């Protein structure tokens, strides 16, 4: 995606999300940077993020399934050491899920042993 930064330079950013409350926009080079932005916003505001754009083949190819488990299993083929949480969240946005929706469901699934986190913010199916 090509966007215009505040300094007027055109730049390529593969991941873009926007606050549902304030419209604050994050343009990131990695999907997990969007997750970090979401967490910083959460410390200060009761707000969620909607994805505007995610330019990653795994997201493009992700199945149209309303299930974290099904999407995670499909994405798992693309990543050797775990699916970045941000990529999973971007893939779930195809079903209208916000970042907060995905993180909340991931937490529930982790706490029930249905998926595991081999390293921080990277997920694999059980």
């Amino acid at each position: 995606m090509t966007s215009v930064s505040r300094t007027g330079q055109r730049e390529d950013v593969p991941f873009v999300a926007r606050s549902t409350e304030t419209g604050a926009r994050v343009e990131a080079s990695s999907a997990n940077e969007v997750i970090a932005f979401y967490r910083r916003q959460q410390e200060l505001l009761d707000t969620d993020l909607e994805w505007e754009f995610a330019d990653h083949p795994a997201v493009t190819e992700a199945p149209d399934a309303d299930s974290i488990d099904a999407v995670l299993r499909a994405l798992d083929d693309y990543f050797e050491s775990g699916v970045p949480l941000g990529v999973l969240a971007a893939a779930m946005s195809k079903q209208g899920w916000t970042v907060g929706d995905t993180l909340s469901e991931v937490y529930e699934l982790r706490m029930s042993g249905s998926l595991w986190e081999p390293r921080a913010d990277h997920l694999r199916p059980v």
Partner: protein
Amino acid sequence: MTRWNANNDEVAAVSPDITDETNALPAEYFTSPDIHELEKEKIFGQYWVYAGHANAITETGAYFTRTIGDKQVIIVRDHDDEIRAFFNVCAHRGSKMVEDTPMTNPGNMGRIRCPYHMWSYDLDGDLESTPKSFEEAGLNPDLDDEEVCSLDASENGLNEVQTDRIGPFVFLNFADDPMPLAEQAGTLKTELEDMPLEEYEHAARYVSEVDCNWKTFAGNYSECDHCHANHQDWITDIELDESNLEVNDYHWILHYTHDEDVDDELRIHEEKEAKFYYFWPNFTVNMYGTADGYGTYIIDPIDEGRFQLIADYYFSSAEMTDAEQEFVQTSRQLQEEDFELVERQYEGLQSGALAQAQLGPNEHTVHKLHRLAQEAYEA
């Protein structure tokens, strides 16, 4: 003479004399990760730092959290109606206790409880209770129950952080023996407390992440030499020639005179002007002079190259009128114009071309900012 890195010019400490060439912080103090780490201790660990607004937590047990540098703090109203602050860290084994809770959506709790082993604390921080497993040694064959020491409530309480207030503004200090808030604030305290700031309600918050060092934005806020060229909509109502920038020990005030009288109902303060207060290190109070309300900024560093601007707006009601919404939109326009400027400046600083900037004679507020930073680094 400009001090370019290419000319191998040596940089120097910020001169106390603003007419000297070396009147600004060297560029590396804006771009170095080491300086960012140093500032956590030398600036944000030593001076009074704004936590939030007292009106957000009016009920007993109401609380919000705030992160300053690496320190996470719970700010809570106790049973005596006092606002207290504690590190968000359990006295047992150091677990973070309370989830991040923004001032704009505060929580309420009867006691502070750590979810790890269920140690509970009163709102004054004293240890209230521990589970039975901490009073008996049933799982330890080498220890009898009688040998288990009971935990003293006050000596095993939470680690309290010093708090003080200027009107409804709650400040924290992490130093062992800090200067009093009244001393750091000077005349700012009485000036702000003379206004009925506590009568206004929080109406809106905008959080923006900006790609520059926090001091870059702080410097931009503190001067208006850039206003004619870059805030053309706003500047049309301001008489800059009749304005002035007043510098004090740890705060400075930007007095901007309006070119026409504004209705008294649209001001909180007496003077017919906009008054922007910058309180070292990273808090501002914005008395716009054209709205029955005020704003605050927190300029919070994320790292050496990014900061969060937390912009809060207070009006007589939390539900803004159309005029107030329009006012906030104008304020947001100014912010976005400034974000563009400071990101451009920071791109230039990051290139490494410039070793040390030079300040002009009307950037004496920026000079004060740089001097305070340098004093803090050297302390």
